[in-house]
């Protein structure tokens, strides 16, 4: 009864503050839960879609490259422990037509043997027209999933044009894959027809194996690996590997997003702390009285924690509901991609996840309790007699100002920055950020006292007498002598501003680095490629010759890119073969300093240049001798240097095109970089190239366009980051407004006294605005410093550890300055608005309250 009365009384009086705390908790929980739900839904759907493509197989055999020779198939099909072997040729085929509209649009086509696939993956069997049953084996028939039909705007019976190298082939849509997963865009053909139509005679992508009932899968896998090792390079993988591969693909991105949600919750903690601390301080007399009247310490402690728990529970529940709705909306309208580009072409649906909900509820509640703990403890342990006296508020908070915990946090944070990643994730990096932030905020009262005490006499001396100087002196005196309340008011905004600064610096550094990198990797005047991605056959040697002989070209560099799987539990790496300047690879590649001087390389050794991710993930350090499974037997190479790659976080290798062609016999290329003779414009060149027999399928880009497009993609993938930052800052500002208004009300007596000694309301308001402004300025400066430190962690620890790339630091001064000014101004305004109410009362009554 008493507890409810206390709670409701307090909330009625300080509704805004309670509301802000609840909103902060709710937003933190909502963000975390939304990201979790979207990620889980997208990941599950993507895995399920990937799984549906491999059906119920126990094991999968594939090569390190996209395809391998089919001769392995009869051997596996007749293997002792194999009940069924299902050969699959999987291709990503370019769709001709409007290249810009469907940029990078490819259709995944599976070439299957229906007699085997119908056992292994029955959902992938097309349904032909009643009178055309043989279409299922047709040499020109393709079956499309409903999502693919919708996406391409076609129906059963229509022709479908697809790109093979520079040629266009026409298939007939023979029916639909009715049981394909919703949203999954795939096509299915007969495997023999696929090999023929897409010029992959003799090639398969993988062979799925179903083992005899009762076979020991692990033992069979080991034996098969050994057996296959004699035939060439093959990878025997399990479904679990595929899941791991998918998880690895997006893990760093997901973890980083979740960290952003944690930031929101973290900010929430400080807001709860400030709400609760101020509320406890305000009710010091009340509590002291209750203690005198017989309430025990324990009861009081429970009461305050209970108040916190109610805030936390309401906030968390609201957050869960909001999170679920947001996730459902986001998935419905934007898909599960979250801007990361990992989960495209699936249509996930949100599913309420009770376990995660409980977890986030506990997190939200725990954080509120944590925020309430210190104030509650202080109130409960206070000696009732002095507490009954007026003016003890700041003393009450002084316990929070012990420097040791703060210093300890900072020290451990610095220590954490030196620790290596855990499971490829920068766990200690994030912990270091949390520690620095906490330490900084905990030390805030000390710092503000120190700084304002130092300023206070200085300001008093410099301009004596003027009203302005009196106001400044008063404000500074207040800030210097009662720093704890001020600091608490600021902690929320400090947390959010710090993190905003850190993120802004990180993103800016990243963007500038990417921009520089793009300039470096795009030195030519014009770029051309055939079809957009992966499996396209590319240009034949004759077509290359025809291209190179177009007049006006000063130089042309062809390149061949393909995928290489070195580890079945990791996504494939990119292998790029092109002419590279041996004497100075930096002319071709954006090299880091980590390289072996060309003169020191052994003569006649084949060399490769690896991206930074290759060093982290596969240990390809310069000077190391490595073998690559691109030919049988696997040729060995020396790692000659490391280059920067912001495009492929899973790793990429560059090698000489001549080496590649000699080793693999693959004479096709995908891309060409063109340097034009003086006086020839890119437009003229495009025009003359378009007149080649295969000219109409060539896609041209100028470096500027590629750069613009890349930066657009970059910005899009950081959009969610910007959004979360904004939310954090808004929560912080709400907190500032709420705590200022609470403080202003608490200081009614003080204002009454000031009125008595002759200050006008205006002057008091001015004083409040100065106070707010000064405080926020300090917070901003501090936030900036802390944020800069944290950005160093983000740039030099978190990014290299999660995404395996390094970048230079750049500070977006203008943006940060603007944000700081906006913040200071709005804090001053908030203080002013809060004060207006406090000074509006009768001065005499205000003073009389103080007995």
């Amino acid at each position, binding site marked *: 009864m008493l507890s409810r009365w206390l709670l409701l009384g307090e909330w009625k009086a300080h509704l805004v503050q309670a509301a802000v705390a609840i909103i902060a908790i709710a937003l933190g929980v909502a963000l975390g839960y939304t990201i979790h739900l979207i990620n889980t839904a997208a990941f599950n759907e993507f895995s399920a879609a990937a799984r549906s493509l491999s059906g119920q197989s126990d094991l999968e055999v594939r090569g390190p490259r996209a395809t391998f020779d089919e001769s392995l198939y009869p051997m596996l099909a007749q293997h002792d422990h194999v009940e069924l072997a299902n050969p699959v040729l999987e291709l990503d085929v370019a769709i001709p037509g409007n290249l810009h509209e469907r940029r990078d649009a490819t259709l995944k086509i599976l070439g299957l043997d229906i007699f085997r696939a119908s056992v292994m993956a029955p959902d992938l069997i097309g349904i032909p027209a009643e009178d055309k049953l043989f279409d299922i084996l047709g040499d020109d028939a393709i079956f499309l999933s409903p999502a693919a039909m919708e996406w391409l705007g076609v129906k059963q019976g229509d022709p479908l044009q697809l790109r093979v190298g520079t040629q266009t082939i026409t298939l007939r849509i023979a029916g639909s894959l009715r049981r394909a997963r919703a949203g999954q865009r795939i096509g299915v053909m*007969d495997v023999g027809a696929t090999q023929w139509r897409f010029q992959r005679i003799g090639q398969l992508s993988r062979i799925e194996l179903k083992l005899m009932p009762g076979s020991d899968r692990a033992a069979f896998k080991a034996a098969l690996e050994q057996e296959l090792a004699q035939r060439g390079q093959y990878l025997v993988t399990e479904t679990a590997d595929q899941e791991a591969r998918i998880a690895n693909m997006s893990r760093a991105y997901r973890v980083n997003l979740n960290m952003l949600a944690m930031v929101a919750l973290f900010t929430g903690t400080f807001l709860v702390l400030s709400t609760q601390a101020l509320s406890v301080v305000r009710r010091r007399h009340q509590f002291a009285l209750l203690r005198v009247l017989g309430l025990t310490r324990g009861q009081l402690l429970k009461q305050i924690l209970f108040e916190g728990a109610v805030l936390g529970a309401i906030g968390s529940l609201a957050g869960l509901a909001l999170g679920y709705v947001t996730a459902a909306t986001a998935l419905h309208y934007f898909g599960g991609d979250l801007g990361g580009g990992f989960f495209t072409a699936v249509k996930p649906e949100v599913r309420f996840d009770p376990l995660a909900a409980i977890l986030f509820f506990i997190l939200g509640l725990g954080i509120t309790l944590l925020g309430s703990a210190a104030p509650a403890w202080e109130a409960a342990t206070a000696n009732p007699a002095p507490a009954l006296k007026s003016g003890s508020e700041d003393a009450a908070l002084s316990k929070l100002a012990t420097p040791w915990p703060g210093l300890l946090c900072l020290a451990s944070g610095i220590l954490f920055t030196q620790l290596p990643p855990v499971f490829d994730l920068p766990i200690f990096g994030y912990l270091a950020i949390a520690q620095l932030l906490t330490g900084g905020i905990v030390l805030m009262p000390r710092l503000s006292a120190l700084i304002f005490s130092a300023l206070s006499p200085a300001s008093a001396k410099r301009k004596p007498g003027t009203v302005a100087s009196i106001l400044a002196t008063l404000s500074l005196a207040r800030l210097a002598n009662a720093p704890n309340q001020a600091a608490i008011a600021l902690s929320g905004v400090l947390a959010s501003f710090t993190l905003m600064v850190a993120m802004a610096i990180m993103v800016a550094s990243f963007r500038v680095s990417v921009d520089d990198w793009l300039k470096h990797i795009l030195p030519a005047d014009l770029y051309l490629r055939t079809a957009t991605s992966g499996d396209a056959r590319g240009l034949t040697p004759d077509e290359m010759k025809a291209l190179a002989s177009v007049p006006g070209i000063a130089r042309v560099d062809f390149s061949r890119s393909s995928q290489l799987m070195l580890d079945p539990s990791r996504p494939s790496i990119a292998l790029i073969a092109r002419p590279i300047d041996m004497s100075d690879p930096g002319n071709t590649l954006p090299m880091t300093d980590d390289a072996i001087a060309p003169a020191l390389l052994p003569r006649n050794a084949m060399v490769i240049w690896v991206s930074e991710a290759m060093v982290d993930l596969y240990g390809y350090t310069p000077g190391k001798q490595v073998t690559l499974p691109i030919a049988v037997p696997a040729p060995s190479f020396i790692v000659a240097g490391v280059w920067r790659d912001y495009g492929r976080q899973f790793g990429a290798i560059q090698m000489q095109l001549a080496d590649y062609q000699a080793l693999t016999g693959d004479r096709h290329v995908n891309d060409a970089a063109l340097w034009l003779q003086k006086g020839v414009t890119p437009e003229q060149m495009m025009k003359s190239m378009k007149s080649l027999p295969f000219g109409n399928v060539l896609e041209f880009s100028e470096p500027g366009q590629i750069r613009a497009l890349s930066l657009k993609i970059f910005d899009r993938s950081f959009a969610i980051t910007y959004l979360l930052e904004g939310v954090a800052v808004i929560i912080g500002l709400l907190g500032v407004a709420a705590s200022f208004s609470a403080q202003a009300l608490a200081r009614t007596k003080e204002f009454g006294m000031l009125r008595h000694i002759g200050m006008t309301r205006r002057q008091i308001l001015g004083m409040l605005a100065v106070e707010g402004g000064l405080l926020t300025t300090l917070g901003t400066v501090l936030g900036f410093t802390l944020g800069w430190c944290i950005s160093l962690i983000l740039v030099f620890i978190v990014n290299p550890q999660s995404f395996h790339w390094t970048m230079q630091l750049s500070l977006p001064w203008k943006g940060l300055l603007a944000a700081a000014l906006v913040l200071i101004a709005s804090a001053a305004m908030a203080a002013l608005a809060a004060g207006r109410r406090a000074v509006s009362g009768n001065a005499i009554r205000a003073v009389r309250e103080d007995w």
Partner: protein
Amino acid sequence: MIFKLKSLLTRSLNFFVTFFVVTCVVATCVFAAPPRFSQVIQGVPLTFPHDFGAHPEFRNEWWYVTGWLETPDKKPLGFQITFFRVATEHDRANPSRFAPKQLIIAHVALSDPAVGKLLQDQKSAREGLGLAYTKEGNTDVKLGDWYMLREENGHYQTSIKADDFTLRLSLAPTQAPMLQDDNGFSRKGPQPEQASYYYSEPQLQVMGTVIRNGKEAAVKGVAWLDHEWSTAYLDPAAEGWDWVGANLDDGSALMAFQIRGKDGSKVWAYAGIRDASGRFTLFEPEQVTFAPQRTWRSPHTNATYPVEMRIQTGATVWLLTPLQDDQELDSRQSADAVYWEGAVTVTRDGKHAGRGYFEMTGYVKPLTL
């Protein structure tokens, strides 16, 4: 046996696609370059051993072995092993080794009155990569680990590992091949192009083993082999057929069939009897009459089959009595057909004459597309 073939595909619900096929109305697929199949022409003599092998230039072909076995404890078992080859219209220019130009389908069934119904299994695959084939020159067919091979001495070896049982049989001929109808040119309807090439090997001596539930039993018995290939189609008026092939105790062999029209009438019929000395008697359609004696209603499909059939060839009356009533093959889940195919005892003019296999199709729905 006359039989099945054509209509393959798809309803590949849980298992494999099988097909089923009556030589019937042409598929209307329009392919890039449909292959041209050879036609069955009267007067072209069969040549052995070449014609023991496959004829990929014809659309359909099958090797079909049925027979009675005896277990060590003197219990009778019926068995049926069939390998089909179906040529598709997939473009012959496709160089892929996976190109599905020929499909191989196999059915196996074991009839044991103690079980009360057929134990059956089936497989299908595209020909190629050494995993499934029908070779030319001599009988050599393989589908995964199921195979049937004719050795130089004329003996057949076959091994079938089905889901519920394994059959490993060796079949030794005791007589020359029996060329059906006009020296192997077998008419199937009133039109001259409705025909197949067809020979049988009756009175094959069987030795081998049957493995069931992990228990291996030595078996011996007598079997009948049919090999038939054609391109043409069943008469559009046909709804199904009844066929019997029987090894008689006196060493003679009886084969008779009738093709039924949609109204139950006889579209075509044929019977051939060859005695132990090799004397061949051929009956014209109007001399052959099938008359149902007793029907059995399938609890699986509700179809009603005349499981006891009276057949008159000229002046002779034959009566077929099933080893068990339920010898229905329901392959609607995998193939698209239901038929009855089972072991029967045969009487001639009221006296026990021998044992054979009886097949009835088209009792559930017309076997046409």
